[in-house]
């Protein structure tokens, strides 16, 4: 009796889990579908037939293309800065004892837990007080700020599981500090660094709230989309969203397969 009840409960939970998955994916399905919608009028809310036109005319809206390019450049630059300084701090926190370590940990935590809105508002307060003009550079500054802690955390998590005697062995065999880092430490923390880099790229390309405070007249992909809500989102946005989604999923699957092969 009790096992039958158990099985029924499990089956219901199984179905329930799938309902939640479908719910979470439904807006994505809509986005992909309406990238193929052959709309005639200005509005794009009803299905009017299949077309590949928007894929062919993907870059026809010049300021949308500029916004997408801005997003990609800003994400690339801020990821490089974030990964370099975040990995350095992750190494310091994971491998060394030093004065101010507790305070540093607190800062890293504070950067993760400050609401985006407050972070954007406080940066704007700083820039206004200091008469700093807002442009792509201030966006990069902000994106490094909210991503760096995630790199620190992933690198630190990776390095504390490593055996320090490997590095000692390398030094005993005559390797320089830099040589030890490049040939022993870096390869073993690389998965953590890569995870941090992907996370920081994704956070940067996705950000609307912080960017909206510090962008000046520079427009990024999310800002352009929010600005276009009132006039109607063109199908090209759906196509770009679909392509970014597809590339992201492919990279994630590729990573998972590569990780499985390695072990």
């Amino acid at each position, binding site marked *: 009796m009790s096992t039958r009840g158990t099985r029924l409960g499990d089956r219901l939970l199984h179905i329930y889990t799938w309902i939640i998955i479908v719910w979470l994916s*439904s807006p994505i399905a809509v986005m992909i579908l309406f990238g193929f919608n052959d709309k005639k009028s200005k509005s794009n809310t009803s299905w009017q037939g299949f077309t590949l036109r928007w894929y062919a005319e993907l870059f026809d809206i010049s300021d949308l293309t500029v916004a997408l390019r801005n997003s990609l450049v800003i994400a690339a630059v801020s990821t490089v800065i974030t990964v370099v300084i975040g990995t350095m701090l992750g190494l*310091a926190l994971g491998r060394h004892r030093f004065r101010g370590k507790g305070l540093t940990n607190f800062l890293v935590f504070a950067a993760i837990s400050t609401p985006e809105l407050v972070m954007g508002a406080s940066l704007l307060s700083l820039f206004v007080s200091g008469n700093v003009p807002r442009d792509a550079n201030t966006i990069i500054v902000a994106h490094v700020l909210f991503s760096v802690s995630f790199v620190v955390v992933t690198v630190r998590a990776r390095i504390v599981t490593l055996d320090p005697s490997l590095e000692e062995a390398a030094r005993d065999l005559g390797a320089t500090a830099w040589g030890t880092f490049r040939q022993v430490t870096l390869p073993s923390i690389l998965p953590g660094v890569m995870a941090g880099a992907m996370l920081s790229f994704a956070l940067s390309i996705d950000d609307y709230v912080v960017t909206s405070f510090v962008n000046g007249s520079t427009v990024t992909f999310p800002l352009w989309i*929010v600005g276009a809500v009132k006039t109607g989102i063109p199908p090209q946005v759906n196509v770009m969203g679909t392509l970014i989604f597809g590339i992201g999923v492919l990279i994630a699957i590729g990573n998972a397969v590569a990780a499985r092969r390695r072990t």
Partner: protein
Amino acid sequence: MRRLTPYLLALPSWMWLGIFLVVPMAAMASVSLQTGNAIDGFAMTFSFSNYSDALGRYSTQLLRSLLYGGLATVAMLVIGYPVAYWIAFKGGTRKSVYLFLLLLPFFVSFVLRTISWNFLLSDNGILFGTLKGWGLLPEDFHVLATTFAVVGGLTYNFLPFMILPIYVALERVDPRVIEAAQDLYATRTAAFRRVVLPLSLPGVFAGVLMTFVPATADPINAQILGGTANTMIGNIIQTEYLTNLNYPTASALSFTLMAVLLVGIFIYARALGTENVLEAAAR
């Protein structure tokens, strides 16, 4: 040289976090006490009335944000816990596939997801338009621009952040502990309530922290799904900063929001007994 290494490694991040996180907070604190306007400039007058003015004018939106954030967090907990439970205990070899499917939405921009959601819910869109066409819904039925749409949007957007930490906590529960409870004649419900649920509390704690703060402070869902009657504090702060250039009021509001969230977290942590939770999480 070796003794200097950690400082050299930490220096760039210290500078970044110091200059762009700590100093801006001080700048915001100072701006929140100034008076003036964008054309003539602002001057420091230690005007604490910015706070009382801002609160007087926008207490509705502040309370509404806390209410919406709280409702969405409760909804996420209720909706997400069973999913985390099923995947952790019954997911078997396909656990990672289910987690991947739950994370799939994150491959699409937050803004774009919210807009697609708006699109799906639009009055005469593919969902409601079709149902209305079949006569299954009254003509004037609408979801957009309601409280339900905003809280639903917040729940939708942050749900995976609730599911994942609970999943991680449940994953660590040793199934033998549950078997032991059942051997000791605990019913399935009792075993869940007295064994599994307490062991999953650190995950619930983390999930609530990861969702309540961003949901309460999020301006996008209210802007895209809410209409004018459902403005949240995030929208007000954005408008005061970016459109009205009323920096003192906006800074005072930002500080108030952060203070309220911090106090809320503190009370929540106390009520749950953080020490117990942290202890359980460390194990």
